[in-house]
């Protein structure tokens, strides 16, 4: 067994107590005011904690009206995508120390979707685009008695896009989506990709036709915002390019 690094880390932590951090949060509550405004909160926090921990400290100790979604708190459920220091991230996967806590940390709702209250947006248009790409396995003929066979290579072909947690970090980082909410957006294309390149699926052509639409893949301008935003490390832009290529070559 290698020398445990944690002992060293803990010694370092004992020397560095909590730091004071300013959270600058975009507040909006139409029950109170039609205008959104920035509000600053100062909290004491261990820099190894998450932005979500900071939001909880504010909600639990300072202002119970602060509203955001969260559930699993470790980057799996996709509830807490938000714009942190101008970048889309999951609050539960972003450590305070990694985002320059000497300056105020700005937190606002993801863009391109209607804000309902504070950091909560209306997710319905996002899920509608997802539902529109037939995000389910389609097969023809009789079902086999046992499992369908699939080689490890064929399984690997679409592995990257199976990781999507539908957090909307990619779609709401896309300038095309900001300007025109009709665009399917990266997440829907990722989920179409997941089935188009699954060797068991037989509806690839139909999905490609859906994405060949004027609001489909051709709207993508390859800015890579989506790839940068994805908290699961999915190569989103690459997946979109593969769908474009499949549309041209009709091979997938």
């Amino acid at each position, binding site marked *: 067994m290698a020398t445990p690094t944690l002992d060293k880390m*803990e010694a370092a932590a004992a020397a560095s107590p909590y730091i004071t951090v300013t959270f600058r949060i975009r507040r909006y509550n139409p029950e109170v005011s039609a205008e959104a405004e920035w509000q600053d909160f100062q909290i004491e926090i261990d820099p190894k904690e998450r932005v979500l921990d900071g939001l909880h400290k504010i909600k639990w100790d300072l202002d119970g009206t602060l509203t955001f979604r969260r559930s699993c708190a470790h980057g799996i459920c996709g509830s807490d995508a938000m714009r942190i220091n101008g970048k889309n991230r999951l609050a539960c996967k972003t450590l305070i120390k990694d985002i320059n806590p000497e300056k105020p940390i700005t937190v606002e709702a993801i863009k391109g979707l209607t804000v309902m209250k504070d950091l909560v947006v209306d997710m319905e248009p996002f899920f509608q685009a997802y539902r529109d790409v037939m995000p389910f396995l389609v097969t023809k003929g009789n079902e086999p008695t046992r*499992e369908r066979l699939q080689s490890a290579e064929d399984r690997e072909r679409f592995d990257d896009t199976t990781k999507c947690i539908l957090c909307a970090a990619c779609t709401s980082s896309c300038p095309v989506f900001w300007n025109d909410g009709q665009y399917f957006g990266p997440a829907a294309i990722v989920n179409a990709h997941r089935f188009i390149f699954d060797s068991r699926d037989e509806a690839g052509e139909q999905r490609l036709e859906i994405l060949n639409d004027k609001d489909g893949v051709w709207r993508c301008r390859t800015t890579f915002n989506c790839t940068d935003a994805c908290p699961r490390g999915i190569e989103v832009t690459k997946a979109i390019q593969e769908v474009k290529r499949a549309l041209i070559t009709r091979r997938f």
Partner: protein
Amino acid sequence: MKIHKYDTVIVGAGGAGMRAAIEATKRSRTAVLTKLYPTRSHTGAAQGGMAAALANVEDDNWEWHTFDTVKGGDYLVDQDAAEILAKEAIDAVLDLEKMGLPFNRTPDGTIDQRRFGGHSRNHGEAPVRRSCYAADRTGHMILQTLYQNCVKEGVEFFNEFYVLDQLLVEVDGVKKSAGVVAYELATGEIHVFQAKAVIYASGGTGKFFKVTSNAHTLTGDGQAACYRRGLPLEDMEFFQFHPTGIWRMGILLTEGARGEGGILRNKDGERFMEKYAPVMKDLASRDVVSRSIYTEIREGRGCGPAGDHVYLDLTHLPPEQLDAKLPDITEFARTYLGIEPYTDPIPIQPTAHYAMGGIPTNVEGEVLADNTTVVPGLYAAGEVACVSVHGANRLGTNSLLDINVFGKRSGIAAAKYAAENDYVELPENPAQQVADLVEHLRNSTGTERVADLRLELQETMDANVMVFRTEQTIKTAVEKIAELRERYKNVSVQDKGKRFNTDLLEAIELGNLLDLAEVMAVSALARKESRGGHYREDYPNRDDVNFMRHTMAYREVGADGKDSVRLDYKPVVVTRYQPMERKY
């Protein structure tokens, strides 16, 4: 107040709820009410796999799986239910594959399988490869696949609808389900859903512990709604502490890590599980491993300056294997601890993980009003329920199995019931209790704060009813919980609004946690033996003469209006396996 009418209403959109919805929607007009968006459920956090004796990579059969489940549950498992679980596991996995789930594959293209704690060849001879998996994202893939199929089937969801009350009406002396009452988070509006059949699939209650693998939202909402209406809760003292949570954070690191060859080590680098479980070693059942870890820590062999954790060592495994089989948990170590698992061991400690107990049901998912009587029209499946297939300790990979087998069964049974029966008339003012609760909390000027009470609850639960318990510690917990329940009456919220009032939501959730914590502690106090996840230092042995029986806890309201927990017991169903000493 709005009134809706559906044949079948499902409460919860995790694995069990969506598996039930796929069946129920095909057969009846169905609505799924969910506190969160469907893919936010904690099913998605499950990692290691789903057990089924497919025998794709080595000899296996459902009878061995049944035995392991019964033994793993320390003979508190209802053996008829365990047999159904193990037999139907095979179709449950194949169903998911046909729905599109991207399992890892063998070189032959069949579903790959790996080792997992407590799953053995031929009644304990050696570990067996029984867990069907998709890297360390099996729960994520199950959740996504089930949601995809809900989209395919056109399942109707009511997202961010929080069910707060179960409507029970007595008809000809029989208590029947009439529907549920829900609070719409976006608007603050109260909705009554009249339904012929209701299925609870709302998950666990792990948030009453501080170090827990559970999501913030796992607050026992379904259990509390039923319990408050006089229905029993079964075996609530049995809670599973998963051996490998990230130190201090509690984030789950799958048992699949040990299935792939990971080793637990103390501060001397010793593979200590060899002492406690000579055959299964690091793959003994979870209760055994968690106790062993705490024994090491208590005897001064824990790691770090405070000696309060041990290491999960993956450094001897090839990086390619970690990348292919355990990509997510290795990333957690990097993200949250700044540790590189290729070269450094990961500090871990046991983390509160899973409620073996819950709403008692039979094998069709029908909820029981007492030891034998079913509540017509009421069903439960998944972690909220207690069938009981997990007994005193659940085996790893049996929960993803449970949600699929009993989710499907309850979906079919509920829709069938809805087709054959009429609506039960709603009681007068069906939303009264919920309206009163919401108004009370919103208007309260009390001085107690939700966050304070919740933290005190979590700290007392961690300190007193976790891996090791004694009469003294449990009594301390019971007294503290009583104090907190009293103070809860004086709780207030800052957010007085109607729109997305998560402040109010957290206050309601705390009320649920407090009631269920009381049930757990009272049930634990009365069980004067050690069995599975319930370990009493003052009664270290299993006592089959007095305690091989399920606890049934009922809420009783006295003449003075005060409520208390009344305990009763229910026999265990034994078919093939007589209790034996449990060795791994």
